[in-house]
């Protein structure tokens, strides 16, 4: 204990003096601001005029169907079989899995099913149910609905496997098998996508103003086409894709640290990579925000010495 009874090892008080007690010199803040606005304005205008900005058109489901029809058929069969990413996702879309965990904490499951999506029914069967004047489709849908869930899964799984066994997943080369109505449903789904009306059936069937693209985006992401296109543009997760954008543009370089973790182990090989990276970034962000209160780290700048480059003109009178 010190002589005044207070703990000897108490925290050293911040002795930084009031800035207003130091000698001053003229400084025109308004002039500085106006010059900054002018310089930045010119820079922005020149950069915009010279380099423009990327705008690769969105992939429509019609584009997808015309560019990679086999992928659309395989995706439809996968949705019906429950083998696509969205079908087995877990929260917030369904209860097909627990999703990612942070150690023992099932954070994803705790988020609960708040955007319920039954991939087979919501993404494939319901849109097909709106088609009229196609007896073969009507019969296929009736057969599908009258079958048990196990039978449905078996048919769709058999057809998915058969598609995988063909060169390029070509439906016309699938060998005969126990597929039930699935080949008809998948083929008609491709036809529906080619009409250009599938987006509307997924987004605005029950509302006039459609602002939520969750279903068509989940469907598109369930296929391989979107990812193939992205990887060709160096946008894959293992290609630093989270901070890139199409073309030779800077993208979001401020997300380099977030993207960095996905490139290294254990994150790059973990099934819980997203939860782990988010937790790590949350800790690091909290550390940045609370830096003034973290012993050791808050003293680091004094020892690094970079401040000597900034305060080179400090007069002897200002030194202790």
């Amino acid at each position, binding site marked *: 204990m010190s002589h005044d009874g207070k703990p000897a090892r108490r925290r050293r008080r911040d002795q930084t003096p009031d800035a207003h007690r130091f000698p001053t010199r003229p400084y025109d*803040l308004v002039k500085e601001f106006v010059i900054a606005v002018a310089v930045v304005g010119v820079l922005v205008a020149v950069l915009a005029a010279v380099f423009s900005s990327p705008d690769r058109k969105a992939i429509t489901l019609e584009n997808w169907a015309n560019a990679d029809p086999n992928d659309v058929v395989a995706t439809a069969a996968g949705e019906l079989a429950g083998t696509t990413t969205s079908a087995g996702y877990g929260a917030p879309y369904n209860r097909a899995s627990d999703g990612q965990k942070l150690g023992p904490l099932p954070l994803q499951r705790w988020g609960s099913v708040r955007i319920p999506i039954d991939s087979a029914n919501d993404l494939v069967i319901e849109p097909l149910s709106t088609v009229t004047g196609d007896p073969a489709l009507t019969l296929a849908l009736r057969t599908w609905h009258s079958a048990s869930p196990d039978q449905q899964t078996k048919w769709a799984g058999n057809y998915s496997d058969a598609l995988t066994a063909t060169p390029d997943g070509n439906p016309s080369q699938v060998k005969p098998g126990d597929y039930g109505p699935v080949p008809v449903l998948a083929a008609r789904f491709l036809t529906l996508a080619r009409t250009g009306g599938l987006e509307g059936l997924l987004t605005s069937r029950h509302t006039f103003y459609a602002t939520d693209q969750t279903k068509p985006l989940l469907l598109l992401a369930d296929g391989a086409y979107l990812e193939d296109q992205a990887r060709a543009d160096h946008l894959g997760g293992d290609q630093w894709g989270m901070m890139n954008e199409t073309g030779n543009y800077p993208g979001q370089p401020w997300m380099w640290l977030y993207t960095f973790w996905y490139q290294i182990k254990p994150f790059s090989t973990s099934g819980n990579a997203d939860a782990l990276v988010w937790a790590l970034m949350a800790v690091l962000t909290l550390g940045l925000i609370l830096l003034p209160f973290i012993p050791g780290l808050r003293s680091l700048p004094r020892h690094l010495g970079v401040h000597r480059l900034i*305060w080179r003109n400090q007069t002897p009178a200002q030194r202790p």
Partner: protein
Amino acid sequence: MSSEQHATSSWTVWLRNHIKRTVPEGQWLPDRQPAYVRSWIYVFGVATLAAFLFVLASGLALAVGGAAWWHTSRVGHFFNSMHLWSTELFFVFMVIHLWGKFFMAAWRGKRALTWITGAVAFVGSIATAFTGYLSQTNFDSQWISTQAKDGLNSVGVGALFNVLNLGQMLLWHIVLLPLVVGVLVVLHVILVRRHGVVPPFDAQPPEPAALAHTELPEPAMQAPTDGADPVQVPR
């Protein structure tokens, strides 16, 4: 009611006094700065503010034509390009400003809240820029949203902040997040003006007695306290 009673019960007087105490007159727009403010690093705070203005202005121009206007109009596309490049510059300046303040340990001298508002504004700006990419209604939006959903869903917040919902993301991008960042920037600037620029490590101001020998005008000789008018001494 006496004038004294009025002064103690008036909310208006309370607010006026509170504002005066927070940033006394003369500190809002001082025409002098401490002599140690003499480096290019100090320019980047103002440069960040300038870039922020162009982000807001180009964003407002894009809002006039609507979410998909820039896909079909050359003028709209130019404003989108200005929005992109002002955002890039905004982050470049802000990151340099942030590193500069880190190397100065600019949280010293009761400036922790200044650092915190700046750091939270930085994080908020990243979220705002991210929702901008989601609101572009093009291929980048499709790919980024379908990838980003996994991160948010993995920690259980993907339904609250649904990156696949264009309507929600657009409103977050043009209303909620800019409002948060804007308020934080205003608070940050108020705190900077309130506390002044952090002094160098271990620097000590001259003793008041030493100042007494300098023939300064009377107002500048008043006892300097935190929140008082800047003491002016000749260079």
